[in-house]
């Protein structure tokens, strides 16, 4: 069963190990963990914790990309849902806040899915609309201010701990397991891959491609909403201008690093999350090494290019070698 770690994950795991090793060289106490006030602390936990929003986004994004789509609006959806959560937090109970924020994410996803699946728009264009307008909507909710809250329940979501594990990490892990169970425990994942591989052929073979596409955008919206709530809970406030800014690009990058092709088809949830962790480990490493954080963008650009070239259908090098290796294996 290839549910957890498919064979093709080798390159990503190696990359993560190399980056971790570099981080260890740069900062000798990188792997130190300590327990304080019932919560684990340390650089590794920090990487996981900060990587949570992108990891959540990439969980939804990987499904969308598997259908040959793309969702540019996740950053804006994060801002909207964070704004909703922050404005309701002090006057309503946590379940109501969560329901409202996740509901908003669901509606955003439904909108994107409707445009793509029913109206037949190009995914880039369809989600661009919400990307442009979404931040405006978020500003409308916060009335242009940075909304802060003190509700301990919501703060716990961003800063609390379950058995020593910070809550965001637990949530991301839970979502990974849930998504994995739903998608890989049933034929759903296969149907999504079929839709991305060849929508017309799948349609003729009886796959409800429209429903599939609608479903992945909705799920992507919900994941983005969760990421937005966690991001807001983390800073105890919602900043409609900056929450989730450019995170859609990080999420796409995570999915691409995770080996899922932008041309749709086969996907891996675990590797997408691993991609998010690789990005965050790089970010943290650059910070720890004392280089200016501006370096991040350059490094990211180089990584995107490298991964793209490896994925390129025209470049036989790496893909060919991997294929040959696989073939020689019994």
């Amino acid at each position, binding site marked *: 069963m290839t549910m957890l770690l498919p064979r093709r994950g080798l390159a990503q795991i190696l990359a993560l190990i190399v980056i971790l090793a570099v981080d260890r060289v740069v900062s000798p106490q990188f792997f130190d963990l300590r327990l304080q006030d019932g919560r684990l602390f340390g650089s590794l936990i920090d990487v996981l914790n900060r990587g949570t929003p992108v990891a959540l986004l990439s969980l939804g994004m990987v499904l969308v990309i598997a259908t040959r789509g793309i969702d540019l609006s996740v950053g804006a959806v994060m801002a909207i849902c964070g704004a909703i959560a922050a404005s309701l937090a002090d006057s309503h109970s946590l379940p109501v806040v969560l329901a409202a924020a996740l509901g908003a994410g669901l509606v955003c996803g439904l909108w994107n899915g409707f445009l793509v699946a029913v109206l037949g728009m190009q995914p880039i264009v369809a989600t*661009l609309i919400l990307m442009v*307008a979404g931040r405006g909507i978020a500003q409308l909710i916060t009335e242009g201010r940075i909304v802060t809250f003190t509700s301990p329940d919501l703060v716990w979501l961003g800063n609390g701990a379950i058995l020593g594990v910070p809550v965001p990490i637990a949530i991301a892990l839970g979502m990974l397991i849930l998504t994995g169970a739903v998608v890989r425990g049933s034929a759903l994942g296969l149907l999504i891959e079929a839709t991305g591989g060849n929508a017309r052929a799948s349609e003729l073979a009886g796959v409800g491609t429209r429903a599939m596409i609608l479903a992945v955008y909705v799920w992507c919206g919900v994941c983005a909403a969760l990421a937005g709530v966690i991001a807001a809970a983390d800073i105890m406030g919602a900043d409609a201008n900056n929450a989730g800014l450019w995170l859609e690009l990080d999420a*796409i990058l995570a999915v*691409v690093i995770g080996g899922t092709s932008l041309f749709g088809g086969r996907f891996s949830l675990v590797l997408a999350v691993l991609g998010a962790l690789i990005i965050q480990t790089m970010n943290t490493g650059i910070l720890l090494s004392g280089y*200016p954080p501006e370096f991040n963008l350059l490094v990211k*650009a*180089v990584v995107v290019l490298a991964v793209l070239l490896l994925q390129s259908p*025209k470049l036989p090098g790496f893909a060919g070698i991997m294929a040959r290796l696989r073939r020689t294996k019994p």
Partner: protein
Amino acid sequence: MKGLPPVLITAIVLVVGFALCAVQFPNIASTRVVGNLLTDNAFLGIVATGMTFVIISGGIDLSVGSVIGFTTVFVALAIERWGVPPLVAFVAILVLSAAFGAAMGAVIHVFDLPPFIVTLAGMFLARGASFLLSTESVPITAPVYSTVSDFALRMPGGGRLSAIAIIMLVILIGGILLLRLTRFGANVYALGGGRATASLMGVAVGKMTIKIYMLSSLLAGTAGIVFSFYTSAGYSLSAVGVELDSIAAVVIGGTLLTGGQGSVIGTFLGVLIQGMIQTYINFDGTLSSWWTKIATGILLFAFIALQQGLVALARRPTAARAGVAS
């Protein structure tokens, strides 16, 4: 062709919108406001002209905002810190940005990668490079800058047509001519119609792809210079999100995002509509600037839905024609 071409609809939206604005605030209908509108959106108009070529050819260029940012920082540093004469700095940055665009086009063509993700990498690269140059705003005090910002043609009614607005209009006209009257322009349309088809028709697809992205980056570099005239400073965070504004302008201007159809003049109208919304919000004073984003989003949706409808109509020509014939 049945119905109105998209450009006409854009023009109607602009005229009706402007009329509505003028009814509410009579002062808007003055050459002064129009002149300012052109000046404020000069850099956007230039970038969007390049974006029109890219989108008609079936691609997209997400790197333009970052290229503008990089250009402003580079120009500011070159003039103020490295003591390079402004004109030399301009030429250098134009060559640099053209090379950058050509490189992106080459990667897109040679490795057969989606333009979206390649130019996304370009966006990171250019923004990161500008951060590396300087993270703070560098003021430009060269005399050329004050000369250019002081220069303006007087329009009747007291309006000023500034130098950068003139640059934008010249590039716009150049863009229209290039797209309409040259082989290059025809090839751009052919490429948008289908790469395989274009290749069979004898279009050198690789060369064209490189040239188109080169043009887009070159215009982004020009827009960066204009932007530095506009703000008299170089700042690595300037023009964040301009790629979205320019894509929106192109789409509102009636260019088909799948490529193959569109016009530079429509893009210009799209830029003007965005500028008009901004001007209206400024005049109103009580509305916040984020309404611009929502209004742009709504317009985007309306125009894309319209395109979708037109495409759907075009795909059922046999039934319609049969109906007409009988």
